[in-house]
């Protein structure tokens, strides 16, 4: 079984032109980076554009990517582009205060479970075609069983079975070892009482 990549491996995979790894990186960081850019820039379109361009840069210069945690690199790139954009606007003075303030606080705002998330993304990606589609529609898009069944022209029973299958595969892949250990310990504890 191929070893699952964690967030740290994504850059080295992308360095070797792994398109799937690039997609995972994108899905992982698009929303958080966009929210981050919006701290500097009011315009939603420009913020999105900056994030997109950052990713495009990463792919185009992938041969120079080093094996490192992507988080700080990505955030730094987005911050620099945002500041460059602001510098080209007239209202420089108004934003200087905000920039100084933001520089210190951005470290805390970033969610720290991106490693686990990239593992999950990779697993979801490996699910069989129909199974993956239904699972993503239910878990990621929030569609109910009946809605998925209607959209794909299949029975609700089939939908539920596919979701169950996906959960089973994910559970095996992701190895909820930590959870089992916790429960096991609790059990041990309760027995002793």
């Amino acid at each position, binding site marked *: 079984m191929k070893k699952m990549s964690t967030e740290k491996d994504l850059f080295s995979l992308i360095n070797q032109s792994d398109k799937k790894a690039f997609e995972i990186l994108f899905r992982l960081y698009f929303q958080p980076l966009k929210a981050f850019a919006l701290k500097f820039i009011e315009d939603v379109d420009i913020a999105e554009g900056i994030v997109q361009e950052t990713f495009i840069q990463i792919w185009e210069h992938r041969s120079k990517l080093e094996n490192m945690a992507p988080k700080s690199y990505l955030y730094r790139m987005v911050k620099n582009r945002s500041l460059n954009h602001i510098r080209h606007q007239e209202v420089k003075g108004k934003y200087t205060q905000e920039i100084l303030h933001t520089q210190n606080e951005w470290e805390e705002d970033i969610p720290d479970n991106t490693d686990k998330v990239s593992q999950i993304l990779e697993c979801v990606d490996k699910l069989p075609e129909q199974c993956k589609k239904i699972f993503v529609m239910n878990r990621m898009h929030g569609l109910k069983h009946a809605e998925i069944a209607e959209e794909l022209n299949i029975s609700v029973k089939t939908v*539920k079975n596919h979701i169950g299958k996906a959960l089973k595969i994910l559970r095996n892949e992701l190895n909820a070892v930590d959870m089992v250990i916790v429960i096991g310990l609790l059990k041990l504890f309760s027995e002793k009482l």
Partner: protein
Amino acid sequence: METNNSQHINWEIVTAILDDSANETDREAFKSWISDEQNSLYYEEIKHTWEQTGDISYCFDEETNGAWEETSKRVFKDNTFKVRKLVFRAVQIAALFCIIFIASKHLFFPDKKELFTQNNIINDFKMPDNSLVSINRNSHIAFIKGFKGLKRKVWLEGEAFFDVEKNIQKPFVIKTNKGEFEVLGTSFNIMCYEEDSELSLSVKTGKVRFTSPNNKFIIVKKGESIKYNINTNQILKNKKFNLNVLSWKTKQIVFDNMSLTEVAQVLESVYNVNINIEDDHVKTLKFSANFDHQPLDKILKVIALTFDIEIEYKNNMINFNQMN
């Protein structure tokens, strides 16, 4: 459901439990199954996986999917299959001619229903799919009779409030001269007059995707509004839903500590009048009041009494004058 073998679990029931959509029979069966320790442990693991994937739903939401589609197209340019591409191109062009031919046939035999307003408002017009549309003054909408086709298409010029019937298989699409809106089932207001360079969208319930003519897009959610300027190609998003956006239709107006300049703007759009305030001080006076289906002159009287100003009707214009 077998109680001792976690391999043969009835997934329908488990997913129903996780999804909170289980009925009595399901819950009973689940209870007896989970009384077994092995099954209980197994269920905890599955539940853990279920919760983990909930946390990452932002990776697959519509915005991210759309952005990925755009980005991957720009980034993964396939240079290796040039020959195949040429053949494909020829087939594409042939197909295009067929489509143009068929489309022109439809253009010459339009089966459209059209609605026009001038100095009137149309309230709650029922469309072929039971969606409701209210149309403001000087506006125009058109749609194919019976909403025939793969999508429910509406052409809009002016201002309208849509209350769209949900139908996942047949998206509701509104086309304007400054961009397109796509929804599944939701209620929202679009203002897109031809002579303005800006359009605005305010979403009351649900979600609406707006796409600009050059394919920039944004998803606007309940309680949010956007403005799009076709000259600067800029989309500005506002997390506030302006209370008076629907006043033209509901006839309910809320003034919450608003300057008279803003009050005048709202009254102008709801009652189709022109209001002028000369005095700078009068412009900044703050007004708070609620009006429900009140005639304009009554509202003006209230303002006049509140601030001791004079309302003057002159040449199709209403003036707020300071009393001396």
